[in-house]
């Protein structure tokens, strides 16, 4: 066989190998429909990442205002716009921001974004969530600059607070798939119920010794109910009633959810309402197992 023929054969083999590997490369870039569906489901289970959407405005484009003792911040644009959103970030960078509260440039996120909680999400769920976020239409909308009124808040106070006071969830090796463990995973790490329903200490960290015992000074000046199973001051609904509520907003007494709870049930592109009945029941079962805390909220 001549040199030319050998080269031609090598070329043919190379061509064949590259043709065979093309679909594999393509699948690494384009997530499967199942992956996107899982991502959308997790997106819904967080309440639709609703802090990143101003009601009735473009989804995930950010700009919602949050006031705290440190000043004022606005939620980020988490659409895949390359300039003003997260389109230019790698998957790993998005996951690091979600879990650890660090931007690609190393800057810390203000923990209005509950990264100490989302750190408890499984790697697979986060990966799917990122794939879903990339599938939402990009919106060009620059973020309003934050106004931090406490001197040295980000350089000194925030790192110290994170190290000393903020409880941090740990990621499981894989997300539990059923029963109370599934409910616990959804409540603690994904639906982030504690962010509103758990009272806070003097340092503004969630007081997890009184997990979900209600917050008399919740967001938007609301008094957030105690949803521990305490017989006099807690949640006394049946598991079925809790599961129905998360799917429909309907309370057993004929009232219907509103405010921020109404928002997370409805969600944006998905919300708690899109959780399966099995997952809503798992949440209800878990809520029945947590420590009952006597803590009367409201008059």
């Amino acid at each position, binding site marked *: 066989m001549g040199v030319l023929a050998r080269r031609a054969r090598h070329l043919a083999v190379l061509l064949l190998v590259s043709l065979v590997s093309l679909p594999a490369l393509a699948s690494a870039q384009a997530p499967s429909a199942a992956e996107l569906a899982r991502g959308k489901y997790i997106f819904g289970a967080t309440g639709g990442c609703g802090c990143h959407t101003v*009601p009735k405005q473009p989804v995930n484009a950010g700009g919602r205002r949050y006031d705290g003792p440190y000043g004022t911040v606005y939620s980020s644009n988490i659409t895949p716009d390359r300039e003003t959103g997260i389109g230019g970030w790698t998957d790993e960078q998005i996951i690091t921001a979600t879990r650890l509260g660090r931007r690609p440039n190393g800057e810390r996120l203000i923990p209005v974004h509950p990264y100490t909680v989302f750190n408890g999400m499984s790697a697979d769920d986060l990966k799917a969530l990122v794939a879903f976020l990339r599938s939402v239409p990009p919106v060009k909308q620059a973020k309003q600059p934050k106004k931090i009124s406490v001197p040295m808040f980000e350089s000194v106070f925030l790192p110290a607070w994170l190290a000393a006071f903020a409880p941090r969830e740990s990621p499981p090796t894989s997300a539990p798939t059923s029963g109370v463990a599934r409910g616990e995973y959804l409540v603690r790490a994904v639906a982030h119920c504690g962010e509103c329903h758990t009272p806070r200490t003097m340092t503004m960290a969630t007081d997890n010794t009184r997990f979900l015992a209600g917050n008399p000074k919740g967001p938007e000046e*609301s008094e957030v*109910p105690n949803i521990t199973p305490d017989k006099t001051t807690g949640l006394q609904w049946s598991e079925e009633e809790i599961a129905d509520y998360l799917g429909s907003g*309907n309370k*057993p*007494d004929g009232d*219907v959810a*509103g405010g921020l709870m*109404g928002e997370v*049930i409805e969600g944006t592109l998905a919300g708690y309402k899109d959780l399966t009945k099995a997952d809503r029941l798992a949440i209800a079962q878990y809520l029945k197992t947590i420590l009952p805390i006597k803590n009367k909220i409201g008059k």
Partner: protein
Amino acid sequence: MKLRTVRAAVILGSLVALAVVGCATASKSPTIGTGDPVADRQRLMKNVGANWADIQNKVKAGAQDTVAVNAEALSLHAQRIPSLFPEGSLTDKSKAKPDIWQKWPEFQAAAKNLENRAATLRDQATAKDGAAVTATVGTFGRDACGACHTPFRVPPPQQQPAQPRS
């Protein structure tokens, strides 16, 4: 004769004037309720909730056809909602958000939405279309009640167990 005519004209005129004033006063004074808008609307909403609980219980029991009377009550109640929220009617007892008056057309639209959704439900029940009733009731809490509660009401601090209400 002339004097009598004048007297009659004066009496007639006074009667007409009285009637006009009377009608005007009657149209301004409240015809229903205590005059305390917060108490009145909370009473109305309790009845809305009772009707809504009744509708859900009936659907669970397979009595879809019987919800027309409750749906009609919801539709009628919805018509009264805007009039029970005069500007600035906020007290310690009220869970209304000031956004109601800042976004008044949206609030009115939300009440109209409840009126229309409830009328749809009534018509479906009257037509004995059980499947349509079940489908409407499935999302009614979120899209008829929640669509107003979410932007315009501060959630109550305690979750109440199921209980019969008037």
